[in-house]
């Protein structure tokens, strides 16, 4: 996947001017927010569950080595295999080797953000395999050769007309009604086309929402059932999961499940929650004959214990995206990589590098809604601020910003001087803006005044007024 977080600003401007994207964003915003609201109102213990979820996640992270080894042992006992990968290329390479050993040609995939992160589709295609995404949203963007714009609704930016157009282009040998633009027809088309792919596939690759150390199982939640067909129809099932997905017990996972679907789509439970434990048993009539779990680190172990540690609790519910005013205005593609919104603005600089992604943590008003809705209480605004601090220390922020901040810091440390200077400024600006009562343009602040006016100061500074009052009393 192309990495363009460095172009955030220009991508955001393009997104703001894209009418169909703006309509899609408006629609999805209310959809997700309202549904979550209702689901949570129906669950009085939500706050306590959140607390518990944090505790479970923190306990696991503090003993991550133990639980990963325990998980591995259980997978082996169930007849499966575990592969460890520290980098995206090592993960892709190991997956390619499994597919080659299975003499596979066709591969189907369930939705998996980690596979986007490691660029798996591209690697598999380069290695000569035919790869088909089966989640409807992922399938749509695969046809459009785009990347997901939302972690749980990858094609949220597409209108039905655009989908119809894409299907018309790619499904012509199926002779569907070329005029079909109704959503049920489009869903049905995808169902039929992908059915053939499911039945022909040699390998199925899915992600995992949780890994259960206790039993060596992987847990996957979907609504469409595509993940399940991906698991049970091909000969080989490969699960790609990052190392922080492990939890100790089935009961621990159950608590997280109660939060996940509600936070994501407002459902109490997604249509399909599946526990996959090893390959098919000797007397089973279906299911994969091989079961592989690829554990991917890709930077997680360096985030562990750092000031960004909290982001490892993320269960990828997408609530922070849905509630973010910046995401809501520019959509996912502007962020330029796999993870958008607040969680993406924290993760992307960590997984790529801060220099490339410096605009992401800056593109936030730190309004705090993300932290408020996050089911695992990740202090996202604080983590964004840590990035800003790091960027400042590494001198990645623009010279003019640092220079201005230095001047401000000087005055802030000299209180008398600060008061004198602000008083002077207020008097000056007050006089200059006397006529209109506002400024339509200010030097150096053109970007700020381009979309709003600055009110002219009235009277005196707060400190001056305060002192006057004190004297009177």
């Amino acid at each position, binding site marked *: 996947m192309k990495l363009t977080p460095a172009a955030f600003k220009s991508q955001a401007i393009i997104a703001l001017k894209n009418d169909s994207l703006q309509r899609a964003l408006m629609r999805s915003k209310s959809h997700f927010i309202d549904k979550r609201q209702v689901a949570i109102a129906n669950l009085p213990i939500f706050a306590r569950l959140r607390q518990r979820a944090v505790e479970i996640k923190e306990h696991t992270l503090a003993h991550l080595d133990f639980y990963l080894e325990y998980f591995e042992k259980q997978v082996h006992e169930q007849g499966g295999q575990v592969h460890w990968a520290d980098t995206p290329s090592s993960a892709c390479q190991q997956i390619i080797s499994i597919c080659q050993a299975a003499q596979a040609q066709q591969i189907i995939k369930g939705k998996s953000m980690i596979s986007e992160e490691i660029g798996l589709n591209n690697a598999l295609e380069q290695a000569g395999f035919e790869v088909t995404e089966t989640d409807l949203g992922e399938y749509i963007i695969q046809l459009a050769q785009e990347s997901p714009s939302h972690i749980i609704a990858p094609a949220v930016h597409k209108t039905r007309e655009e989908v119809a157009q894409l299907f018309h282009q790619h499904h012509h040998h199926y002779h569907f009604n070329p005029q079909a633009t109704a959503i049920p027809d489009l869903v049905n088309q995808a169902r039929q086309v992908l059915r053939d792919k499911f039945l022909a596939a040699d390998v199925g690759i899915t992600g995992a929402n949780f890994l259960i150390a206790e039993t060596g199982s992987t847990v996957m939640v979907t609504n469409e059932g595509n993940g399940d067909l991906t698991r049970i129809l091909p000969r080989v099932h490969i699960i790609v999961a990052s190392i922080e997905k492990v939890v100790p017990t089935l009961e621990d996972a159950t608590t997280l499940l109660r939060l996940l679907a509600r936070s994501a789509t407002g459902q109490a439970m997604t249509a*399909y929650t599946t526990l996959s434990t090893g390959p098919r048993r000797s007397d089973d009539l279906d299911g994969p004959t091989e079961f592989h779990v690829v554990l991917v680190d890709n930077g997680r172990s360096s985030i562990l214990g750092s000031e960004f540690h909290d982001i490892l609790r993320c269960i990828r519910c997408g609530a922070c995206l849905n509630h973010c005013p910046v995401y809501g205005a520019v959509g996912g593609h502007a962020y330029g990589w796999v993870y958008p919104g607040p969680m993406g603005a924290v993760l992307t600089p960590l997984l790529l590098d801060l220099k490339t992604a410096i605009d992401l943590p800056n593109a936030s008003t730190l309004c705090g809604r993300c932290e408020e809705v996050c089911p695992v209480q990740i202090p996202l605004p604080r983590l964004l601020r840590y990035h800003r601090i790091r960027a400042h220390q590494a001198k990645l922020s623009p010279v003019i910003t640092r220079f201005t901040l230095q001047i401000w810091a000087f005055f802030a440390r000299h209180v008398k001087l600060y008061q004198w200077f602000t008083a002077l400024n207020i008097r000056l600006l007050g006089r200059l803006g006397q006529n209109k009562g506002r400024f339509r343009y200010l030097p150096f602040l053109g970007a700020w005044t381009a979309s709003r006016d600055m009110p002219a100061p009235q009277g005196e500074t707060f400190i001056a007024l305060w002192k006057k009052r004190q004297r009177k009393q």
Partner: protein
Amino acid sequence: MNSTRSTILNHIRQALKRNNLDNNTISNLEARLAAHTIHEQPTVAADLTTTFMEQLTQVAGTVEVIPRTTDIPFAILTFLQQQQLPPKIVATARLKAINWPPQWQVAYRAAQPADQVSVSYAFAGIAETGSLVLLSSSNSPTTLNFLPSNHIVILSQADLVAHLEVVWSRLRSQPLPCTLNIITGPSRTADIEQTLQVGAHGPKRLHVILNTQKQY
């Protein structure tokens, strides 16, 4: 590969500022696993059947309550007639004992692409969410749950539980199946314009036959 494994585990230990865990901590962690404590659970009304049916209906599932096991074929027939489907089903081998009407075609095997209707047995029903729990086995191939457009699930009232955690504790006394499905309504997607559409890749209809007979 093994070296990657130890690199990752070493990184983790470095990040956590410690070496290998001491025996004491390990036995504590093992005790936590063995205890598998149940955390906070939402309250579920005492009448599990009503709650289950309400929840199931909310997620677009349908349900018919039958008083006797011998009613199963009739309940299936009613569903097939409502949906205008021929009496041709692929079913769990647990139904072999049933006396099917002569003109019916009943197969006991994994599902195939042309199958339109499947019948499975649920291991449990969960009142909290209206979910069904199905375990894969030679009697109960997982393809039955996903390939056909119509999925009929037989659930004994005795197997209705309040929360998912009951299922976990029941499963601990037997080997885990290859695949365990928790099914909550028919397949759905909202991937085009956030518009809910039932019947994405899995079944378009999920019909539960709730059997209230005590002994069978």
